[in-house]
């Protein structure tokens, strides 16, 4: 290693900085591509994300839309926000407070046929907790949703 001894501290510092800045840039690039965005139905219908991209969809479960398929573990339902409706399919243990007319956030991806495939459902799981995104729906959306579900 032919580094002049008196430069060692600088060289080490430079290498460490390059690696760390490189890691930072990589992270920034990966975050742009891998962060999962939150949509409400009207947004996802207007501008659907790429089919393999992980996203989250939040809205109200439409009254009368929930049905269980023959295997007993797959459910299909419609999530709506008053403007648009998105069909959703989910296989798994259904959260106990998941009912028609209540809010839900589905994690998953948009299928090519316009059906949202959910890997995970976040429902209100007690009276104090609602998914964060649901708290922040615009007032107009919330009012419409309330009017719809009554």
């Amino acid at each position, binding site marked *: 290693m032919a580094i002049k001894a008196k430069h060692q*501290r600088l060289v080490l510092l430079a290498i460490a900085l390059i*690696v760390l800045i490189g890691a930072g840039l990589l992270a920034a690039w990966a975050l742009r591509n891998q*962060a*999962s965005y*939150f949509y409400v139905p009207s947004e996802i219908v207007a501008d659907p994300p790429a089919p393999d991209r992980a996203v989250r969809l939040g809205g109200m479960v439409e009254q009368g839309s929930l049905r269980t398929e023959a295997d007993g573990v797959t459910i299909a339902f419609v999530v709506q926000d008053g403007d648009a409706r998105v069909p959703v399919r989910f296989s798994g*243990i259904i959260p*106990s407070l998941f009912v028609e007319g209540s809010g839900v956030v589905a994690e998953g991806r948009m299928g090519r046929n316009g059906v949202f495939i959910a890997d995970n459902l976040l429902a209100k799981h007690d009276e104090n*907790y609602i998914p964060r995104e649901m708290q922040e729906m615009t007032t107009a959306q919330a009012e419409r949703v309330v009017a719809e579900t009554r």
Partner: protein
Amino acid sequence: MIAELGLAALWLAAALAALQLVSGALGLTPKGAALAGIVRPVAVVQGLLALTAFICLIYVFAVTDLSVKLVAMNSHSMKPLVFKIAGAWGNHEGSMLLWVTVMGMAGGVVALIERRLPERTMLATLAGQAFVSIGFYAFLLIASNPFERLSPTPVEGNGLNPLLQDLGLAFHPPTLYLGYVGLSVAFSFAIGALVTREVGPAFARAMRPWVLAAWIFLTAGIAAGSYWAYYELGWGGWWFWDPVENASLMPWLAATALLHSVSVLAARNALRAWTIMLGVVAFSMSMVGTFLVRSGILTSVHAFAVDPERGSFILVLLAIYIGGALTLFALRAGTVTEGERFALVSREGALVFNNVMLSAILGIVLFGTLYPLVAEAMGAKVSVGPPYFNPMGALFVVPMLVVLAVGPLLRWRNDRFGRVGGRLVIPAMLVAAGAMALLVMGGVSLLPFLGLVLAVGLAWASLLPLRERKLRRTPLAVWGMVMAHFGVAVSLFGMSSESAFSIEKLVAVNAGDTTEVGPWLVRLDGVEPVAGPNWTALEAQLKVRYKDADPVMVRPQSRSFWTPPQQTSESALLTRWNGQLYAVLGGEGEDGRWQLRLWWKPFVTLIWIGGLLIAFGGVLALIGRVKSDLRRIIARDRTADRRESQGR
């Protein structure tokens, strides 16, 4: 009465922290030297007062004194005693009181037993510790008083979040806090050394046991937290890259880097400024974690307080302490003289590489954790999960693990790869054989593949430092290092195996139906109602059978708590030497069939066994270091005595 006693103790402790700061700072000046003598006793009493306040809080929770607001909000007279006590820190105010208690006690213990630091550095360190404590005392007393009374006294309390009513909770947060806050000692040491400019091997030897101890608690706390999430949430996963998990991982990464750089400083008097920097960063990460968890910015089972005032308060504390420490570092780092030099291929070189990789991983986790907050400020709602963290983390973990296999074999100062190459032939062959076997098997994706082969090679390589040593004479610290590194391999194997070989089955079955998951046959005998002290549940009677072995019953439950009304899923785990069967009971369909979610997870338990091995390696190293330090002190005292007697 007891609540008032606790509050008084807290105010007194805060006042003593102020006294400790002032007397410590003045003690450094020539005029105030007389004050130097009171700093240590004040630190000890301050710690005891904080402990008194904490014991008072536990008492009001244990007797369910509902006139205390915190108890009424978070407890219930019908709860089992152990959860009443654990409830004392299962809420925002209580956990912050636990924080200052650990901080005060840590300062007290340092004041009581630390004798290796030069006295001036010691004064600066204790003043630094008090400076940080004051902020958190102020936060408690002004924005989150745990002893606030409620009038009129309610008839019954609100109860504790059922997810938290678990024995795991009783020990997980205090363990983690001992680690988080234990790092404040490293922070204060770094401040002390910056103030007095005394950085060197003696300083590193004094700092090392404190870093080790905090790191052991952090490691154990993270492993326990991961296991708690694994069996309590019923989702089958053991790490979710939840911001709260990341908040515990970040200080651990920094502390792991610090642990290794402080060893270089102690052994070789190199990496001086870098070690100080890591001391500052490690506790800063603890505080960032607290900010994330306690500010209400996140919604999760961990985020008790949704209160913007508290969030801003912690943010201001963060700015003062982290900003202040980094400014001090920037001003003084230039005056910390350069340490001993070393070649790139050397023990130091490998440790520097490991430190840089750990820092890069820390940066990646920090970016990913903060990104949703930044994006939200700009109007986009995003979440960041495994698709970001797993590949980005692996990018730096893999090279780090390769160097981890080689580094401990290298000599200090200067070495050649050729000298150690011969010893690495067997691990390299193991890696190649593992890779071949997996390729033939097929179907394993890249990250688990890399993890499995690296784990096998690393397991072997981690034992190599014991070769050519007389095992009886090998210092405990070396045993500790070997055990911790071996633990990394064990844990990595568990993670990769879980990811590569888990079998999941999701079915709806009638009573009497049998289903197959991996090597197991699972038969639902029936679903029965059962009752506990503050819940009722539906319990599935599953008769499970591993290949030809005798059948065993497992009983997953779907529980309904009364206070507060909430449902949780109690998964059932069946542990065998080669893995775990994991069963979750879902709901009943309209056709009367029950949903079952079943996993067979080969070698999943190795994840936590590895974690415990890592922590236990730390314990061995700590015992070894403390023993050899004591020996050194005794030897020095003897020499001093001899000189004295000769002088006469």
